[in-house]
C-alpha cells in the first residue's frame, strides 16, 4: 500500500491545523489546531519509519519525543491561558492598550 496515502492524510491534518491557527480566535482552540499539526508530523514520521522498516525506528522514537514535548507545551500553554484569564478579572481594562507607543 503506497506510503503516499499516509502522507496525504498528514498533509490534510497539517493544513487543517493551519486553517485553525489562522481562523480561530480562542487561544485554546488555536492550541488544539496546533496539536493537529503535530499529529500530522507524527503520522509522517511513523509512516516513513515503517516504510523504511530496515532503517531502524528513528521515526517512531522521534514521534515519541514529539508527543512528550507536545504534552509539555500544552501544560505551559494552559497555565498561561489560566493566568491571563485570572488577571482579566482583576486588572482594569483601560490600562491595557499596552505594548504600543
Amino acid at each position: 500500500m503506497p506510503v503516499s496515502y499516509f502522507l496525504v492524510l498528514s498533509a490534510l491534518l497539517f493544513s487543517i491545523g493551519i486553517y485553525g491557527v489562522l481562523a480561530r480566535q480562542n487561544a485554546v482552540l488555536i492550541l488544539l489546531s496546533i496539536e493537529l499539526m503535530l499529529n500530522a508530523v507524527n503520522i509522517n514520521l511513523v509512516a516513513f519509519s515503517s516504510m523504511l522498516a530496515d532503517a531502524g525506528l528513528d521515526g517512531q522514537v522521534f514521534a515519541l519525543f514529539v508527543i512528550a514535548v507536545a504534552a509539555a507545551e500544552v501544560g505551559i500553554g494552559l497555565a498561561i491561558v489560566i493566568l491571563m484569564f485570572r488577571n482579566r478579572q482583576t486588572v482594569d481594562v483601560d490600562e491595557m492598550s499596552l505594548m504600543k507607543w
Partner: protein
Amino acid sequence: MEVYEILFWLFAAVMGVSAIRVVTTSNVVHAALYLVATLLGAAIMYVLLFAEFVAWVQVLVYVGAIVVLMLFGLMLTRAPIGKGSFDNDQRPLAAICALAVFVVSSVIMVDAFEGQEIDFTREAGTTSEQVGNAIFSDFVLPFEVVSVLLLAALVGSVVIARRDEEAAD
C-alpha cells in the same frame, strides 16, 4: 481490497471529518472531543503502521493527559459551552492558505514517494523493547534532555498557574 486498506480509508475519513470539525465547531468542548476522535484515529494509523508502542503512548499521553488537560483548561476559564463564533473574519483567506499548503505539499510528497510501498505482509510490528533499545542506544541524550524539559515544563506551569497568595510586585 485488503482489510487494512479498508481500515485505513475508514479511519482516514473519520480523522479528516473530525479534524475539520475541530477547527470549525462553535463549541469549545466539542472541539476538544473531536480532537480526541482525531487522535484516536491517529493511534489506529500507528497500529496499522506496526507502531504499537507509539500508538499506546498516543492514547495514554494524548487522549489521556493532554485532552483532559485541555478540557480542564476550558472549564477553568469557563469558556461558553453554548453557541458562539470563535472564528475571526477571515475564514476564506485561511481556507485558501490551508488549501494551498495542502495541495503543494501533498502533490510534492506524492510525487516524491512514487511507488514507495509499505509492506504490510511483515509479521508482528515493533515491540516496545525494540523501541526501548533504540531510545537508550541512539537517543540517550534527547531522552535525558526531554526529562529535564518535562521537569521545567512542570515547574513552569506550576509557577505560572499557582495563585501566589502574597501580593507581590
